[in-house]
């Protein structure tokens, strides 16, 4: 199962009750959001609205279709904009 790591955002930690690493059954980013919401109500919404994910090191923003592999490491980080 892919592993989710909360490297950041203590705001998210409040929602997971301090858990920083957990596994989630998902094969794409959209499923991941839905599962996060199920496990930790509010977290899926937070990820969807204001966070990006790094899947195996690469940053994805707003990409529901991004593929997760069984051993993937998913890191939740703040969304990145720019000037």
């Amino acid at each position, binding site marked *: 199962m892919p592993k989710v790591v909360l*490297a*950041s955002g203590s705001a998210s930690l*409040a929602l997971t009750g301090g858990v920083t690493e957990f596994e989630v059954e998902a094969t794409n980013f959209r499923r991941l959001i839905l599962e996060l919401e199920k496990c930790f109500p509010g977290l899926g919404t937070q990820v969807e*609205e204001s966070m990006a994910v790094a899947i195996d090191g*690469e940053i994805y923003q707003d990409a529901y279709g991004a593929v997760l592999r069984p051993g993937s490491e998913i890191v939740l980080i*703040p969304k990145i*904009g720019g000037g």
Partner: protein
Amino acid sequence: MNYINSDLKVVGTRPVRPDGVDKVTGRAVFSADTRASGMLWGKILRSPHAHARIVSIDTSKAEALKGVYAVITSADFPNIASEEAFVGEGPMNFRDLSCNIMARGKVLYEGHALAAVAAVTPAVAEQALALIAVQYDVLPHVIDVDDAMKDGAPVLHDDMFTAGVNPKPTKASNIAKVVTFKKGDIDAGFAEAEVIFEDSYTTKPVHQAYIEPHACLANYNADGQVTIHASSQGHFMVRAYTAKLLGLDMANIRVNPAEIGGGFGGKTLIYLEPVAVALSRKAGKPVKMQMSREDVFRGSGPTSGASVTVKLGAKKDGTIVAAQQVLKFQAGAFAGSPIGPGCMCGFAMYDIPNVDVLGYDVVSNRPKVAAYRAPGAPISSFAVECAVDDLARKLGMDPLVLREKNAVVNGSKTHYGVSHTNIGFTQVLAATRAHPHWKAPLAEGHGRGLAVGFWFNIGGESSATVHINEDGTVMVATGSPDIGGSRASMGMMTAEVLGVPVSKVRTIVADTASIGFTFLTGGSRVTFATGMAVTQAAEKVVEQLKARAAQTWDIPVDAVEWQDGKAVPAGTNAGAFEPLDLAAIAAKQGRTGGPINAEVSVNAQGAGAGFGAHICDVAVDKETGKVEIVRYTAIQDVGKAIHPSYVEGQIQGGAVQGIGWALSEEYIYNDKGQMDNPGFLDYRCPVASDLPMIEAVLVEVPNPRHPFGARGVGEVPIVPPMAAISNAIKGAIGLRMPDLPMSPPKVRAAIDAAG
């Protein structure tokens, strides 16, 4: 398709840009250059107070003035609910955005808009503003970030409870958010360190200072249809936010992108458009608005000022084993400074096992910050790169060697969890070492500084169409405002794919009704993401061109190849046919199946991160404290330079903005919380005589996720200058200048204090 290792004919050359002649002859139409029949002039009343409750606003006298058609306040806008939106800088709340463009209940900074009028001439509009009677209950204010965090500081929002701390605070404060990033074990890291260096730094808010003030022309028709002509970094953004703030359907708003006179992040959000639309609705006439320079300084977003501490621990051999940073960023009057990226960027260049970063997003009575080139990174890096330099001194190491030793490479995992992929930092450092500037002897009394910088770069949503005209010339349309030559680069990528000269391709920026959604021009994304859409659209057109040739020759499509702008039979088996060029196929497009064109929309991922290194030589006048930049070299991995001149231009311009940030730019407040220098005379941007030539060195490590290998360019170059200059000053006079700007009085004071 991927063209990274192809023989390129157009990409990488330096043609004259398609919109160039309009811009050198004064014909280009910028935001303030249009009029509409029956047009009125809109003007905004701004708060003279830094913090006050609005007791009452009496507009009756203004309304009675001859020539005044409409006066509005926040009562003319829907009171919208709190909802997060993602703006250039990061998440922003629509309710805050609404309150920022028209104050509701309280004014939160000097310059905060609280009423607007539309009148027949600008002079009458000004008179009307003077007739609006506002009763204020003036409140204590707070400007400085450290002061705003203190217990007992005046609180701006009584519903602001710091997010990111557990348990949630019960008392309102000015700290909107706390962000943390941790990697490894910071205490163990410092315990293991043999040399520790620690220092504190401050930066001042600086304005993007685009030379074109915000302006727009809006028309609200009797049937509810709205047209807006405005310059911005994203006309789809203007449409979305205007719709949201006024409760209108997007389909009823059409935004025409005017030429944009600079943005640098500052035009990734809106100030005037909803006001102009509301005035037009009330007046029943088109309304034109334009900010004065003073309005721009007082009422639109600079970037954050900040206070930052850095602590580094290293082994004697220079291996950095622990790094800690605390960042306090001013957000302005509403939450949302670039604290997230600030926390991520400072140590992103270094592979450090134990990292601890803590960031605060803090509101105070200043204009709400807006994105500014690599938002957050320059502030964070200024502190880190000064500290790394001083660590090198403490270790007795060359500052480049220390950086080389700790530099991230592909696969290095950052403290925010992302592993670097496809980066060219190693190559940038090698180019720095090899550059003659790095080896050149220093003149007596001069100092040399080095600093490196990083920015993520982004991708995102972009749309593009490619049309083949009947004569074989080509039209390209995208939804990305052209802020610095993107029409040229889009046309060049199209020409390359189609195999035609770039002079046969014309690129336009299409309005919101004429092309699919396209995200902002920002985050250094256009060449990457919109370039990807354009390339794919051109490739689709090539497929059609091949099919039309196949039809003409009556052979299978896969027996046709596209070479140098011509369809040719694929090998001798396909048959012997004379090549058909684009013009020949275009002339027959009606008969072979109709118009040839393609539209592609993408949500591009895989924007390659950018790294740069700047070398700077300075001379310090010990009498006056004036720092002169003697030589400046900016080295950067650009992936692939589509149009090298405009890539160099981005790097040179970014570096010079950084030089201004370093030496002369700052918001100066008086004790009433009013800005004392809201003009270009006293807010001192660099001018030509302040500078030497800026040498831009392009390192090209292709980004495999882009068809031509491009990566974002525009933001990285503003990251290193402040530290490079502070490090150079230290080299010249032996003193660390940890507070920006390093203006003559400060440098002189430091020299005096040192005796």
